[in-house]
């Protein structure tokens, strides 16, 4: 194995990320810059940044690997991840921006006027963030091992160090530029090799994928359980996107609600463009590298396919390109998640320590960032590998069963109360955690119980919604005083002169 292309690619991406981050530092001066880039990011730049941040290892490596291993049913992953932005657009984008809050806990506290709800929210943000960071670090380990032969611990350590350097130095302002750059890098890194590989395939006389009809057809196996898994996956990805802490925090960087909507629309276009590509790798892998699926290394498909299909220097260059893209995916998603988790840790844990000397906003944010990166990085080194896309899928299910009901009801339903929100988030969060634990402890699932636990969103999301609505209706006295006024602020356009607090 030639390690050179991988090493050069990782070095270049790391260098570019640090350079752009440092350049962005010149614009980063205030606490507001750190947390929300002072809310002046235009829709196109912001959408590129959201795309860059959102397209994680699961999208770049995981989808192609899943399609290779399991076939057409896995096409629902990218469809759900894109459709999630449509749900976000129609239900929360503009009102969330107009709420004027920095983070999800800020939104909950402003809407419901309760410190208890805020605490539960902070806990959930950190839980979802860490659950999502874990596979990013593990994916980095797989990538470096597969392209350069380095030990598995090298990847998490490099990604952790670069993210920490960028996040603590420049905060949100510099990260915006870094992530916008990384979207276009990832698109190029997948598009150019895909075009070359498709022309090689056409030159070979367009051979058909091996594996028969069962692979290319959806729901070929599984019957009712297969149908449940597909629908539950759709629910998790469709409703989970709006509850991901690193996605939500980006909406606060829009200048106003109208820009938030337009940003989301551009994101839909950028994601649709990107997700055309991973299935191409999956299908070509079925033709040229079916042994990867058999040996359980399907996550490495995108990285290894160029070398398998193209010989010589061209193959090495293409390998370098996909490695660069994969590394950009780890860096950008982990940066975004770290910022979101660091913001919450900095504001709610470190910033409120009742010690004699209170830390200032930026210092608390930096300390929070250190915690936000070190903890999942350590766990990634110790914990077993779940498979990148599956672990990310569980984070989506968790977000869908906690924050989605809170956001949707908080924005559209005046009678939501603090106790109702807490009950709903706890019901969804606890059931999801039980399901995740069950799945981890069941090595070979069989039967309906295991199926329900493997993909819990289809029953945990309705459960959380019912709990939230039911308890809210039982505690009508706890409807916050200014609820009507708050909803007016969320839905009224900025062109009206309202007192926005």
């Amino acid at each position: 194995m030639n390690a050179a292309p991988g090493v050069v690619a990782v070095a270049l991406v790391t260098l570019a990320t640090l350079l752009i981050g440092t350049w962005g530092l010149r614009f980063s001066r205030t606490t507001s810059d750190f947390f929300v880039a002072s809310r002046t990011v235009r829709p196109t730049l912001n959408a590129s940044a959201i795309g860059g941040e959102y397209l994680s290892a699961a999208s770049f490596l995981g989808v192609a690997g899943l399609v290779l291993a399991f076939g057409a049913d896995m096409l629902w992953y990218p469809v759900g991840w894109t459709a999630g932005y449509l749900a976000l657009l129609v239900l929360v984008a503009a009102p969330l921006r107009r709420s004027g809050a920095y983070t999800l806990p800020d939104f909950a506290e402003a809407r419901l006027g309760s410190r208890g709800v805020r605490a539960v929210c902070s806990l959930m943000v950190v839980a979802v963030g860490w659950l999502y960071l874990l596979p990013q670090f593990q994916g980095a380990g797989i990538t470096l091992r597969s392209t350069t032969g380095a030990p598995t611990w090298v990847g998490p350590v490099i990604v952790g160090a670069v993210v920490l350097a960028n996040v603590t130095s420049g905060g949100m302002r510099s990260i915006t530029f870094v992530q916008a750059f990384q979207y276009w890098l990832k698109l190029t890194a997948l598009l150019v090799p895909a075009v070359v590989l498709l022309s090689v395939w056409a030159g070979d006389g367009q051979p058909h994928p091996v594996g028969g009809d069962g692979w290319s057809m959806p729901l070929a196996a599984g019957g009712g359980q297969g149908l449940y898994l597909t629908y539950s996956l759709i629910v998790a990805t469709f409703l989970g996107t709006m509850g991901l802490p690193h996605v939500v925090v980006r909406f606060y960087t829009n200048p106003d609600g109208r820009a938030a909507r337009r940003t989301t629309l551009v994101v839909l276009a950028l994601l649709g463009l990107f997700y055309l590509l991973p299935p191409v790798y999956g299908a070509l892998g079925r033709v040229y590298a079916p042994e990867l699926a058999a040996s359980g290394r399907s996550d490495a498909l995108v990285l290894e396919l160029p070398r398998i299909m193209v010989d010589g220097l061209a193959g090495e260059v293409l390998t370098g390109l996909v490695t660069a893209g994969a590394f950009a995916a780890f860096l950008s998603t982990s940066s975004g998640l770290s910022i979101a988790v660091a913001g919450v840790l900095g504001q709610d844990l470190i910033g409120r320590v009742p010690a004699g000397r209170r830390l200032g906003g930026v210092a608390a944010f930096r300390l929070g960032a250190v915690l936000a990166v070190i903890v999942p990085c350590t766990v990634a080194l110790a914990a077993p590998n779940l498979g990148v896309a599956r672990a990310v899928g569980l984070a989506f299910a968790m977000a869908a069963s906690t924050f989605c009901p809170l956001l949707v009801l908080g924005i559209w339903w005046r009678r939501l109360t603090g106790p109702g929100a807490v009950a709903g988030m706890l019901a969804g969060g606890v059931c999801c955690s039980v399901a995740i634990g069950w799945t981890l402890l069941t090595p070979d699932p069989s039967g309906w119980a295991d199926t329900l636990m493997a993909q819990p969103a289809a029953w945990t999301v309705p459960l959380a919604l019912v709990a939230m609505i039911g308890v809210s209706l039982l505690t009508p006295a706890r409807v916050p005083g200014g609820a009507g006024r708050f909803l007016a602020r969320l839905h009224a356009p900025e062109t009206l002169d309202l007192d926005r607090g």
Partner: protein
Amino acid sequence: MNTPDPGNPRERVRVTGPPRRRTPSAVRPPIDTETRLGGMYLRSLLREQLRLAAGVLLALAVLVGSLPLVFHLAPGLSSAQVLGLPLPWLLLGVLVYPLLLGLGWVFVRRAERNERDFADLVRGADR
């Protein structure tokens, strides 16, 4: 800060840019205070936007959400070939993305129109 002192009308005022906030109009739009009229306006806007969101989500459910069920009930469709691709791959791998973008575009246009209408209504009541 920079308001001219009435006692010294020729004091210089440094102008560094346009005023950050428009001066609030004398009469607040009625939705700002929780009056009955304000509540009524707000409920009408909420209802319009919610109806719009539900319409978009319903279209999505019918056009895309029904696909697994269709493939489950009519397995013959899964092996149909269209434009050289198996039908499920063409639908889920390619055509679904322009559809999502189109639905989003329709939503943004209508939501902005609802907000314009609402703003006109409130301003009209203000005068």
